[in-house]
């Protein structure tokens, strides 16, 4: 893992920033969200992929690509969470003043 981070830090940073941006936008976004049911399926899918990666079932290059995708996705989610929280915090600080 440490090796992947040092080897791919630019892509991982890009994923994190993308997540931050998406999280920032998501708080005030008016579009359609993912339904609860779909979100549950997506969570199951993600858990299954993580399980596959940890079990090292997929060999060779696809296995590596899966690892890479999961790490980028994890950092994206972390970025989203931080971004959303920051936006929310910024909004709530501005609201009383307004």
């Amino acid at each position, binding site marked *: 893992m*440490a*090796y*992947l981070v040092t*080897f*791919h830090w630019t*892509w991982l940073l*890009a*994923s994190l920033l*993308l*997540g931050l*941006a*998406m*999280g920032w*936008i*998501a*708080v005030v*976004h008016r*579009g359609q*969200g*993912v*339904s*609860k049911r779909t*979100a549950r399926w997506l969570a199951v899918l993600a858990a299954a992929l993580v399980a596959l990666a940890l079990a*090292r079932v997929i*060999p*060779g*290059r*696809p*296995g*590596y*690509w899966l*690892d*890479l*995708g999961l790490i*980028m*996705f994890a950092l*994206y*989610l972390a970025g*989203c*969470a931080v971004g*959303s*929280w920051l936006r*929310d915090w910024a909004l709530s600080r501005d609201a009383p003043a307004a």
Partner: protein
Amino acid sequence: MHGLFRWSSKWWPGVIPLVVFWAIAAWTSTPPLESDLAARSTSALKDSVLDKTRIAVAGRDVTFAADAFSEDGRRSAVAAVQAVPGVRQVNDETRLVPEAKPFVWSAERDVVRVTLRGSAPLPASKGRLFEAARAGLGGVEVVDQMNLSRGAPPRFDNVAQLLLDQIGKLKDGKITLSDTKVSLSGMARDLGGREAIAAALKNLPEGFSVAANEIKAPPYIFQAYKDPVAVTLTLTGYVPDNNVHGALATAAGRKFFSEKVVDNLKASVGAPSGFAAAVAPALGALSRLSTGTLVVTDREVKLSGDAFYDAAAAQIRAGLGKDFPQGWQFKAEISVKPAAAPVDATVCQQLFSDLLAKGKIRFESGRASIDPDSAGLLDRLVETALRCPTANIEVAGHTDADGEDAFNQALSEKRAQAVTDYLVKAGLPAGRFTAMGYGSTKPVAGNDTDEGKAQNRRIDFMVRE
């Protein structure tokens, strides 16, 4: 927390560029990642002793194939690759090198090259043997056909090194090490090479032994050439040691009374047994030839040349082989020198005097038996006597003044008679010779010095018409 769930339902649009990022990252990073892992794995193995190492990387998975020389070495090599950071898993395709039973190694030399075959225990020892062969055999092509196997006897390297040193002493041949047994065959390069190899094999480490040593020595050659034109005797080839060398040189000086001895002999080990005992009489036979060559090859003596007269040729052919030690062979190709032109009595006398001035007929001390070393001189005297068939010759014996006159008188008569007998045996008519003894009555030098006495002890030939 509730907010986070609410917001997260709207995070999905970012996944689309994320997937694009992911695709680009996967596309661009896979080959450099694989080559980086391959390089790291290779460097992790640099202290492992392996053969035929092959590393293939797919993604983060390493397929590692190699021949290891021990189970421990194999396991630790696999563990070293597994420990490389970034490697996800190792497909272990390593195996142990095959075990050779028996463990055979050989070095074979022919005219132009040395070929190393069989098994070596480790790549390092294989390389060392190859380098040692190249260094030790300066200039000879070395061909390495060794493969790697397990099961070498302990101290294999030392033994193989020792055997490689021996291959340098061979002209051609093969040295094989099978487990702990050494077999050798071939021909030594130099005289003494066989003995040197046998001596070196005594240094084999404990547990190793020589199963067969069939190294042959090159022929041991001694040659002597009597040249009547240059009046020389040329000795070439080998003698066993300086004592034999000295003895042969002295004997040659005595037997070849008029020739200059050119001594090109070299001392070398490897002489057949009985060498001195065979060469000395062979030189005596050569001294009786007008021109001739003596070649001693191992235990074969070959004498060719021209005798002075028929009876001498027959005597040499019949007599020489008898003096030889057991196991020696004798081949004679003796012809007879064409008779020289007859001369008159005066010239004959001159020829006798010249011959007897150059050499003296020797006898055993105080006795009348002719020393065999004088056979060459006597044959020359016979030849001269044959050239003046009408002359009558007085063979006169003289002694020095030591001892009783009566004894000296008798001795001089007996010695003169012995010489006459020799001449008659050679085929000359007995009636032409008169044996006379003069005791010490006709000295040619003073009897007060050893030198003078030696000059007085003599046989003279006087031509009487």
